[in-house]
């Protein structure tokens, strides 16, 4: 499948998003541009505080505003700049073309309504349907996401379902639209056990075979990236530092942070029989006091004077691979075989 020929579904252009706090202004996302093409799975990967969730939530305006505000940038979805839309217009989009699944389905679902009625609500709000039709659609979706005994399960309350089943119900709700264009999945399997995580990832892959949709997957877990991603954007302290197809990220990383992330994984094949990991020293900088330079400079073994002065421009490695690093040529790319 040639991704380059595909149309762009969503493009974020030079987004700057910050939060006003008592201690000062936190620039959570800086000069971020990403494109999601129709039908692809793009993963945003990074550690706590890198801005991946803020980015995802900026798309359908789920960040609390204030204290959050968009300083500049555009988020263009199917030709419309979402940041110019009124609240009612963005709400209409949320139930029809942009859907979202969250990390903790227990807090994302309403505990006092049955899961079926919450899904039916999506149909009732956005489509012309009777209550009974909406419930029948809910059962259909439960079947689609492989919840056993869907006719019975739609009448369950969230607490009566297991974690895995709740996440399936969330996914069903996200699919409750006439044309689910974009599904934003924010750490969808982080709260789940590994055997259940595997089932949910498998389900998402399976759904993509049947439904034309794009997935923006937010995760901190390189294992999930390896399983799911077509393309990967690596973020660090609010900045995009590397972007590439999944294979290049894992086998030909050019940014010291991407390399560091891969080296931090105990399951990395290079550690067979090893007794130490090549960890990244230091900690993530405080976003309040961060300057104009590369945010990774203080932890980077390749850093030079230039790194603390300015954030590097894009370097194009190949058609599908870009890196933002002054010293990318010095980065020893210990590719994993």
């Amino acid at each position, binding site marked *: 499948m040639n991704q380059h020929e595909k149309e762009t579904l969503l493009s974020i252009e030079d987004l700057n998003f910050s939060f006003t706090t008592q201690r000062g202004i936190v620039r959570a996302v800086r000069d971020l541009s990403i494109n999601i093409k129709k039908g692809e799975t793009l993963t945003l990967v990074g*550690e*706590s505080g890198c801005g991946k969730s803020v980015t995802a939530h900026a798309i359908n305006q789920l960040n609390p505003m204030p204290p959050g505000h968009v300083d500049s940038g555009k988020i263009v979805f199917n030709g419309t700049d979402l940041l110019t839309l009124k609240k009612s217009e963005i709400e209409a989009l949320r139930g029809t073309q942009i859907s979202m699944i969250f990390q903790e389905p227990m807090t994302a679902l309403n505990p006092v309504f049955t899961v079926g009625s919450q899904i039916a609500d999506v149909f009732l709000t956005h489509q012309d349907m009777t209550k009974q039709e909406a419930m029948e659609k809910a059962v259909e979706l439960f079947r689609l996401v492989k919840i056993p005994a869907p006719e019975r399960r739609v009448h369950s309350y969230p607490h009566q379902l*297991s974690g*895995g*089943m709740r996440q399936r119900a969330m996914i069903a709700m996200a699919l409750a639209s006439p044309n689910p264009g974009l599904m934003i999945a924010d750490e969808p399997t982080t709260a789940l*056990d*590994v*055997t*259940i*995580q*595997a*089932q949910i*990832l*498998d389900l998402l892959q399976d759904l993509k075979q049947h439904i034309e949709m794009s997935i923006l997957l937010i995760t*901190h*877990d*390189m*294992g*999930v990236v*390896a*399983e799911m*991603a077509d393309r990967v954007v690596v973020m660090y302290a609010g900045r995009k530092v590397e972007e590439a197809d*999944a*294979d290049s990220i*894992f*086998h030909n990383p050019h940014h010291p942070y991407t390399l*560091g*992330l891969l*080296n*931090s*994984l*105990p*399951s*990395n*094949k290079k*550690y067979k029989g090893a*007794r*130490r*990991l*090549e*960890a*990244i*020293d230091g*900690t*993530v900088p405080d976003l309040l006091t961060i300057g104009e330079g590369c945010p990774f400079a203080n932890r980077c073994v390749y850093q030079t004077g230039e790194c603390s002065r300015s954030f590097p421009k894009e370097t194009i490695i190949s058609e599908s691979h870009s890196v933002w690093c002054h010293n990318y040529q010095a980065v020893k790319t210990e590719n*994993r075989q």
Partner: protein
Amino acid sequence: MSNDKIIEVKDLKKHFRIKSEGATESTSLLKAVDGITFDVLEGEILGVVGESGCGKSTMGKTVLRLYDKTEGEVLYRGEDLFAKSEVQMKEMTRKMQMIFQDPYSSLNPRKKVAKIIGQSLDIHKIGTSAERLDRVKYLMEEVGLNPKFRSRYPHQFSGGQRQRIGIARSLALQPEFIVCDEAVSALDVSVQAQILNLLLDLQERHSFTYMFIAHDLGVVEFISTRILVMYLGRIVEIATKEELVNRHVHPYTKALFIASPVVSPRDRKEGKHLFQGDVPSPINPPSGCHFHPRCPYAVEKCKHAYPPLKEISPGHSAACWVVQNDI
């Protein structure tokens, strides 16, 4: 690593009485740990892996007698822990310590770091206050914290630094045996790697014995020398790391390995043979082998009788009728 047993766990059970759902009077029994037997050998890192509710944390805490047992024995160098008086037990705790998962909730937010790390020295009245301070400074350096920060409070540290504080606290009394209960699970991956290295450095320097409890197979596989797999309160398989990684036999262990995410997109497989179904509630576990409803190899016998943990090759035991060829 010698073959001396530092801990012997014999048919240990820990049951909790809990209110059943929707009922006011009746209670039911949650069998968190339900009859497990194993040894911890001096100098080894025994990894304990399993999913939520399998009883791994309860087991770790019961082995240290942080929980009272329901049945069974825990021997520390041959001495029965549960036969000790409170005073004797206090002496024992000097040798056995624990590192907790959540570096936010396991440190008292109202105490300064020096106080948190040195508290056990105070409790055991070790040294003069000047000596205790020296020891705290030494411990902070040993775990990679700047001793200058000893008068700060936990909230002034990052997650990784807090975990270092928790580790320094566990080292204060120079223990021999440390239970690490999901010690790196709450950390970002780059910090997790730092802490894993630290734990390994400390082990080499002090010849500690660790019981390393975690749900993440990748982490357990990296750090352990031997691995124990739990499912719903029981041990399903135990072997040296090499053996378990390369020649695991229990269907649940297989399920765990299959479900673990790949390490590269090149290893992706379509149509993996994933095991279906959820982890059942430990309150009312399935009859017979608890894994039988999810197990593709289950036979009639699995529904009725729980298989014993039996050695299938030297040092490698599994609890499965099919594997034991006893069906």
